[in-house]
């Protein structure tokens, strides 16, 4: 039960961290692509 509840609470910040890393990497890629194509990011 202790492990299960620990997982239940902590899985959300772990998922948040995963999405944060994914978004940051994607933005860096977007930025490089925008530079390459001589256009603005937004």
């Amino acid at each position: 039960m202790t492990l299960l509840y620990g997982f239940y609470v902590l899985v959300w910040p772990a998922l948040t961290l995963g999405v944060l890393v994914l978004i940051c990497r994607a933005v860096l890629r977007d930025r490089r692509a925008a530079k390459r194509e001589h256009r603005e990011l937004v």
Partner: protein
Amino acid sequence: MNSASLHQFSTLTVILLMLAFYGGTYLLTLGIRKKKEDADAFMVSNHRIGFGIGAASMTATWIWAASFYAAATSGYTYGVSGPIHYGLWGALMILFIYPFGRRFRKLAPNAHTLGELIHARHGSSSQLILALSNVLGSVISLMVNFTAAGALVSVLSPLSFQAGVIIAGVGVLLYTLWSGFRASVMTDFAQLVALMAIAVVIIPAVFFAMGGPSELVAGLDNLTVEQADFFSMDAILHQGAPFFVAVLAYAIGNQTISQRLFAVNEEHIKPTFLTATVGYGAIVIGLGMIGLMALTLGIEPLNGDMNNLIPQMVSGYLPPVFIALFFILVIGSLSSTADSDLSALSAIMMADVYGKNLARGKANPQRMLLVGRLTMIVATAVGIVFASFSLDILVMLVFVGALWGAIVFPVIASCFWDRITNAAFTTSVLVAMVMFCLARFEWLPLDGATGLLFELLASIGGGVIIGLMAFGFLGRAMGFLAGGLALLAMLVFATGFLREYTVLLASLTAYGTSTLVCVVMSLASRQERFDFATIGERVGDYDQAHAEPAAAPGQAAAPTSATLAGQR
């Protein structure tokens, strides 16, 4: 802990924190600012926003200050499943709109608002109904976010509620006013990074500071049987079901979502919306867990106000630097939503009101920009005044919710079925609103045959919701099958029972009535079937300089004269 007050910052500290936040955000927008912005970019950037910025902006926009407070309240009230019943359905609002969003984008690749698409499909009356529902929603959202800023500042510092409202309103307006949507999406990314980083730190910090998993499990004894049950019917009926009913309505009725649908690179719509779904769910459910932690510890919310739960837990278990981080978390979330609302409102006034109804084919891009910026100033002032006077907006909220529910079927069906007519769209929404009011305010006694009639309409509404959801992902056959089964299940289980839950009954009635009237009127109409290919020709860019480069790679750019001629 129960009797402890919240940590108090000095006036100077809070002013410095807000200056750092809004000053930093403003500086960020200077990097993208153009001396001469163009009208289309002001509304939807270049229609080619990448996956990263798009997903960040979608997530940041959908998370508002109320998300944290409400998720924590849900965890505190309904126990173990409470945070899920708030965060999961909120997240699914993003997920369930994307299949329809792809269709909207395919029909009108250069649109700025969903209203423009509906205008091209039906004309002004249907478009203005949709625009009105979007405007009301965004004004309410602005007010709620400014109110959250005022409340936060007043509970954590000696500054007044009104001072917090004004600082937030002016701060958001300053960085959004010049570049509009471009500033909104750019700052959304920075705000989301801060927001996520803080959430990643704060949730485990509070959890381990209160004693970790063992303390949480020990505290489960403080919960009622319903609160300890992950499949609690109490949580499902009171928190989950009303939210589930609103899943499609919130997404269709919200221009902040449509704006991003039309701004993101078409190929990236699916990953953008999937990532935003997971991101939103993770942050909001995670912060909702703090409400569950408070419940297991037997903590009473300060002054009986549930909104104090998270600040109370952070204040009670963590050093002041975490309270400052929490402060930035809330200011970031409310600002990212408020700037999106300002951008949404300006796009509606620019495209739906000025472009389609006042200029009638002769829209001047520079005048459009002026309309957009003036809208932002007026909307901020209205938001500040409404928030400062703490006006009671309950009735407005109820009506907007009903309006959003009533337009779901007519809007979606109009984009797939060529027989829906303008008269069917408009009449169905108006009749649905009347039926909603009759049920919601119990203007008719909901017993006997009347109660049964409303339960029948609500059952149709339930079938429509499930049917549309299945249709979006699995196609027409599965949509009809799922909708039919849901209707049958509702007829068996809801009749004689649903009348006890008037809020749910009224919401479902709005869906059911609008669908019924819309379908019957459309089938009875002898009007010629609509050619969907004409929508793309009628909806285009406004700014000549922007129109041609905006075309997607591999596609021939529409001649400028054609796109401008299409503004009718």
